[in-house]
């Protein structure tokens, strides 16, 4: 913890520095604990404040980044706000409805448009980068093919097919073609390989394998594009290679994967076969500390931006 705090480059003020250092020192002294040997990375910035005005965040829950390094964030006011990687507010808009609940998944399609998993309305909203609602893919609520329960995330593969993850009454992944016609589904509620308990985040790797953050099973599962189970790793816990409620994942070109753990308040860096390379972050409200983080993205400079949900902010780290 201490190392992260000391390495922070954008702390708000000298007073903050002093407070952070003093707090870290006091905690270390009090607990008598040594620095976490698995801690890696350094904090490079903290941005975002709580609020409902433009540029402020109210319990943000999903985040994605487009090829131009513009970060899209949706929060508990159902506002989608766009920032640059320095946290400068660019624009924002609201989803059409939010009474039933707020979106929990964002991603960018091949055309650079924003896809919003409108969780409690059983639909996908597709926006232009400027915020124009281009398309609403409305599905029936249900557990049949092509029907949706609570939508967690959506991604598009290189052939224009869409993969949609759901939880709630169903725990599965459905595959749709480019016209949103149902192709196939797999999963089901359970803890066996290939089953899910809240598949919260999806990602496609270079081979177009689908990576699923199986949050309540505390693991990552990997499938091919036809739903064939390939591998799983993780398991509940706080140790290296263990996960607790992984809510987001990012695949890095260096063949590593970053997983943000809602329950462990950290971002863990792992090899593609699940070997832990260390983690960054711990629980708390200071810079370098996380409080129930929901999502993360990686920008072109290789920096990780973590959505620090209950601290209503984004933290940038290099791992």
């Amino acid at each position, binding site marked *: *913890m201490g190392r992260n705090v000391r390495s922070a480059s954008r702390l708000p003020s000298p007073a903050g520095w002093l407070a952070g250092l003093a707090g870290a020192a006091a905690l270390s002294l009090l607990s008598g604990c040594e620095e976490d040997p698995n801690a890696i990375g350094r904090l490079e910035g903290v941005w975002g404040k709580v609020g409902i005005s433009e540029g402020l965040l109210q319990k943000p829950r999903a985040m994605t980044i487009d090829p131009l390094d513009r970060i899209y964030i949706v929060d508990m006011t159902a506002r989608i706000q766009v920032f640059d990687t320095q946290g400068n507010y660019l624009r924002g808009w609201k989803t059409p409805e939010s*009474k*039933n*609940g707020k979106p929990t998944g964002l991603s960018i399609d091949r055309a650079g448009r924003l896809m919003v998993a409108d969780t*409690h309305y059983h639909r996908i909203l597709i926006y232009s980068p400027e915020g124009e609602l281009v398309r609403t893919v409305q599905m029936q609520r249900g557990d049949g093919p092509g029907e949706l329960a*609570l939508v967690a995330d959506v991604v598009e593969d290189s052939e224009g097919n869409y993969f949609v993850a759901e*939880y*709630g*009454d169903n*725990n599965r992944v459905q595959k749709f073609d480019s016209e949103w016609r149902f192709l196939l589904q797999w999963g089901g*509620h*359970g*803890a066996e390989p290939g089953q899910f*308990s*809240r598949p919260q985040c999806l990602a496609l790797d270079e081979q177009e394998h689908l990576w699923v953050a199986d*949050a*309540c099973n505390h693991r990552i599962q990997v499938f091919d594009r036809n739903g064939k189970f390939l591998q799983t790793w993780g398991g509940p816990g*706080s140790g290296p290679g263990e996960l*607790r*409620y992984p809510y987001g994942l990012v695949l890095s070109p260096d063949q590593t994967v970053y997983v943000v*753990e*809602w*329950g*462990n*308040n*950290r971002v863990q860096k792992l090899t593609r076969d699940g070997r832990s390379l260390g983690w960054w972050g*711990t*629980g*708390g409200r200071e810079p370098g500390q996380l*409080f*129930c983080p929901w999502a993360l993205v990686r920008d072109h400079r290789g920096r990780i931006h973590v959505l620090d949900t*209950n601290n209503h902010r984004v933290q940038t780290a290099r791992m």
Partner: protein
Amino acid sequence: MSQYRVTFESPGYLILLILVPFLWWLSYRALAPLGQGRRGVALVLRCLIVGLFVLAVAQTQMVRISKRLTVIYLLDRSLSIPPEGQTAMIDYLNAAVARHRVDDDRVGVILFGRDALIEVPAFAYNITLPPNLQAPLESDYTNLASAMRLAMASFPEDAARRIVIVTDGNENLGSAAQEAQALAGAGVGIDVVPVYYEKRGEVVTERVVLPPDIRRGLPFDLKVVMNNTKQPAGADSGEVTGRFVLKQKTRGEARVVSEQKVTLPPGKRVFTVRQQLDAAGFFSYEAEFFPDHPEKDDTMTQNNRASAHTHVKGKGQVLLIEPADNRSQYEGAVKALAEHNIEVEVRSTKELFASLGELQQFDAVILANVPRDAFVDDNQVQMLVRNTQQMGAGLVMLGGPDSFGAGGWIDTELEKAMPVDFTIKSAKVVPRGALAMVMHASEIPQGNHWQKRIAEEALKTLGPRDYCGVIQYGGGGPRGGATTWLWTPGMLATGENREMMLAKLSRMTPMDMPDFEPGMVLAHQGLMALEDVSVRHMIIISDGDPQPPSPATINNFRTAKITVSTVAVGAHGPANSIQMDAIAKATGGRYYAVNNPNALPKIFQREARRVTVPLRHENEAGMRPQITQPHEMLGGIDAVPPITGYILTTVKQNPLVEVVMVAPEPGPAVNRTLLAGWTYGLGRTVVLTTDATARWSKSWLTWQDYAKLVSQIVRWTMRPAGDEGKFSVATDFRDGQVRVVLTALDKNDEFLNFLSPQMAGVGPSLQASEGKLEQVAPGRYVGTFPAREAGAYMIAVSPGAGHGTLNAGVNVPYSDEFRNLEPNQPLMEQLADFVPEGGEPGQLIQAPDGLDRLEPLLEEFNSFRHDLARATSSQDVWPFLLLLGSCLLFADVFVRRVQVSFAWVPVVAAKMLGRKPPPPPAEMIQRLQSRKAEVEDRIAQLRASARFEPSAQLEPDRRILEEPFAGEAAPRRPAAAPDVAQKPPEEEGYTARLLKAKERAWEKGKS
């Protein structure tokens, strides 16, 4: 904007300033050695010090005189001013402020109707009120006085003060003239802006009159008084046509008893409708007039309705309350009571009374196997208790599987009123229950509030020996949140831990729980770890989006016979959750889908009752009740047939409790009560812990004395018949209050003193009013309650123990707001004529053409004129003067004791400027050189002495060495130096010599 002035609180002390010249004269000579300059400074300082101390003693104050003005507008929002008048008032205010407010003058706005409120506090900016100003005010009265009081209290103190009253002057509460006098006395100016409007016609349904002695089956005339205030004008005869409707309401049902088209000529008219009431009970009549052309004839519809209530007494009337979802189980008991001339009105918990007044028609109330959660409103339970305690009615609690402790009545007002407690302390008698709750409702509106409330309700329902645990998902810790128990260890007995549990619940802030599995596993472990528990139950509240538990976990619950009830709340659209329904079905619990959080506490009470099941004691073989003492309730009954079940209780440790019948088993007698009664307040309460129905008392239904037993139990509790002849009740309405006067005489017409009469009123909308009557004179008791609504109020007065209830009524007329339909010019002129202390009189800002033409009005009148007494504020400065004087005292000492040389200044200045320092004066150099030589000589001698050479030449001059110690208590030495050659040098030091002397003294002492 301010001026300052100095004043003295005790100016008499200023006479002490004459000491200053005396001090000057005295010190002038004494300070002469200081030299001219220092003496001058010291003298000035001394005089200043004395002067400051004298000013401090005189309590000097700084007075600030402000030129600012604060104007507060009081806007009349009562109904007597039509909407167009209200808009004109706001337009005037906005324009006047914009035109006349200058500099730092402040402006504020107060609105008033029945009460007053601050719409805009006084600030120094131009306010603009919206034309459609909405304010949470009751506008059926005009209380100008309260607005004036509020203005007086809200004025800032640092400015002159003026109120501008914009009104029609029709006050009907309080006295504005009296307040104006007080305001003027305090220097507050009063301007009045009259609001004029045309006189309007109105139809008022003034009252519904019922005869006082309505008897069952006898016809009576009901009269409705209506008043048409319209005046004939030219071709308009003033007649108003419309529809007159009279409704009768009883037990929540309304029935139209008369509807007719009527034509109302100007003035009052009375309609008479013949009525007959064939059943005993509480009846309410409501008359309403619907004009054909309301926009022309009757602009205010609030005054078109009037009502009156009555109740027709039966022989002896009892209310039996049974649960809405299990009706007709007490038909046998009802029949039995009817056989003994006791009329019973059976109501379910969903069609209960709304006020204590409504209960007064009944002499006793029977709660028949009613669980606590069946009552929609907890206030009704309190009313039942007060009905006994304060109004003297009886209260009987009949047993059944959902009654007493098993009905969730533990720790309630009802338990306090009963002769038994509903909990069992002995573990041998009753096994324990255990309840675990999983909280996940944080995402509904006010989620944390509701979670706390429902958990508290469930906790209160449990007995002291039952276990309770709460599971939540909480954050914290370096590695984040976890599903945990709220208190450790998870399941704790509620009795000794209840306070701690409630405290923890009040601080509980559960987070969004991702899945049920950890919580359910935790609950299963916690519940199974309890060995002495016979019932295990769990409640899950959630918005349904956590992941469901694994089938293995559900199986574990099923195997362990732990029921799980699930409550789905609508955080994400309408409440519905397939998985929560499935959990409840799989474990034998109940599933609730709740969209209104208000329903949650009752659900949790009901679910918590599942763990209180052990309080039921059943024995199919039968248990024969044992009569413990002869009692009125068992008059003529020697033996009672066996029962098969009852609810366990604990007899209260109170000598008033009479236990009449107990069951033969189980445990000690204090827990086996079947029938007991006591006097509670002015009334009596009785418990019959078995059910008196076919479930537990089947043999009673065919028993010949069943009716006798039931009727005697009820009759023992019933309110005594009233001796109304010796009491009289008078009522009247004044200043918003109904006043009830009770005159009490005994049989010999002597005054009855020291009674504690209680009263309960029921208003036109069946709203309750209660209170005590205080004795004001021999045999005379007076009580009041506010009556905010116009209409008929029925009042029941209970003089005290042993006396029946007296009934009276009072009609509260419509507010004068609906009658005084012309502005009150004299009052407005009177208010404007008050002359504020130190200022000019107010102005009547009168626009003959109304407030529509603002320009001439603004040209002529300015409420921001500065002609009032200026506000002053004073501040004590004497503490500062005292402090300053003390500091100067130090300076005085410094000047006299320290001579400050400024010779270094030219030297330093020259160095800074790079010049050669000026040579010191020659005389000074000579003095310095001789001094230097002297010091060098002495130092040389000192060095010589340090070599310890016993030479007379080199013997140091002891005078030099001892000079620094001359003033100290150094040992005296001979004035002349001893001759070193003749006398050997001193080898011993002074200390050694002292020691030797001491030794010698010792030796001497020994010898």
